[in-house]
């Protein structure tokens, strides 16, 4: 039995197979409509999340399975003091697979150690969010046709943004990827990403503060939200939240085939006027998220569809 804790749990070859499967699901959804008949997905969301939870639920429903779970810690036994280990032992009796989001980092790993069903990390604090990374990889591969030979700009909160950390680690495994980190001084990408991932493999990267200075170089612009929930100090949040706003003027500096991605929800960092630009890929990214989660559920449940 396999779990998914980090996007690097899959080798590059396994990831290719998963993305191939997701691509086939996109082209032939009807083939998979009953692949999980009679199977149940438990969504254990100790922290609120609209997008990820609904994406998992949609994925399981598209496969013919059903869904149960909770959407906040307050509506679970955690409010009575139940441990993660005890909760997952109980859930293992109710469902065939589970997706867990928890505000504490490493909670899904604790669950996976005692679970008798596959556990998917659906986000653990500021640590990992592997299914977002799978979504990002599928989006890039589908829209750019490759995962190597790319210059990707990551913009906004690069310090606390777990999606950025996971994506950098995942893309670092492909050939000729150049990273451009665009952030204010206070929200720079942590040193462990630079030292342990990029410097360790001699991968090229740049750190800049102005988005305009690098727009023309990018194949992909990955925007992120400055997340209020990651700040201990409200003043810092207010000062930094509107540091970057992507608008049509900035988009005019970009290549014609650049794509703009965002893990969503966005607040002010992408002006609504950009939505009409064909290079805005963030809503297509959401759709790819459903396909990749369908592929992941099938893979972890070892369901084969001919």
């Amino acid at each position, binding site marked *: 039995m396999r779990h998914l804790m980090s996007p690097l749990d899959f080798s590059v070859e396994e990831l290719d197979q998963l993305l191939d499967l997701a691509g086939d699901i996109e082209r032939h959804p009807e083939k998979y409509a009953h692949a999980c008949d009679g199977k149940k997905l438990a969504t254990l969301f100790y922290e609120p999340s609209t997008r990820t939870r609904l994406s998992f639920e949609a994925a399981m429903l598209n496969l013919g399975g059903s869904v149960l779970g909770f959407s906040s810690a307050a509506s679970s036994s955690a409010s009575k003091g139940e441990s993660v*280990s005890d909760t997952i032992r109980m859930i293992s009796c109710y469902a065939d697979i589970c997706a867990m989001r928890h505000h*504490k980092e490493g909670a899904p790993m604790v669950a996976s150690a005692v679970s008798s069903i596959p556990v998917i990390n659906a986000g653990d604090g500021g640590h990992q969010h592997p299914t977002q990374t799978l979504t990002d990889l599928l989006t890039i591969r589908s829209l750019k046709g490759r995962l190597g030979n790319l210059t990707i700009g990551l913009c906004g909160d690069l310090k606390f943004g777990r999606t950025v950390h996971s994506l950098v680690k995942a893309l670092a495994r492909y050939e000729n990827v150049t990273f451009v980190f665009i952030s204010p001084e206070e929200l720079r990408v942590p040193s462990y990403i630079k030292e342990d991932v990029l410097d360790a493999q001699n991968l090229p990267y740049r750190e800049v503060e102005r988005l305009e200075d690098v727009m023309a170089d990018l194949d992909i612009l990955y925007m992120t939200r400055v997340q209020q929930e990651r700040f201990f100090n409200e003043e810092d949040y207010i000062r930094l939240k509107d540091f970057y706003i992507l608008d049509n003027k900035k988009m005019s500096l970009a290549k014609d085939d650049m794509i703009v991605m965002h893990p969503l929800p966005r607040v002010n960092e992408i002006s609504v006027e950009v939505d009409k630009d064909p290079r805005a890929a963030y809503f297509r990214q959401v759709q790819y998220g459903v396909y990749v989660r369908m592929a992941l559920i099938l893979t972890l449940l070892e369901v084969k569809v001919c």
Partner: protein
Amino acid sequence: MLNIGVLHEGFVLDHIEAGRSMEIYKYLNLDKFDCCVAIIKNARSNKMGKKDIIKIECPIDQIDLNVLGFIDHNITVNIIKDDAVVEKKMLSLPREVKNIVRCKNPRCITSIEQELDHIFVLTDEAREIYRCKYCEEKYRRKKK
């Protein structure tokens, strides 16, 4: 050199960085053992200038030396049996350590989950970096 009696069975931990012997005393849980322990601080050393030494008289299977590799793998461990040094053990960095140090990340699951072991895993041997198994927080060694 100050002379402390010869051990019949036990360990002599030599080449401890000066001033770290009490830290090692704590990590080895020597306060919980009913055995004879001598701590020598700031002994003269040709190699190190000053060093600490700990002599422990106890059965040689009683102490987990794995911990020492984590604290400082440059320590020399002399194993004594029947009044003689039977082995000079070279320490290496253990792959993981359990419940030796606690994760200090307030966002880590170890801060709330009952009876969860605090486990640190060696992630970079060359740079001697350990990270929490759960949240990947780096363990910061105390530098003297």
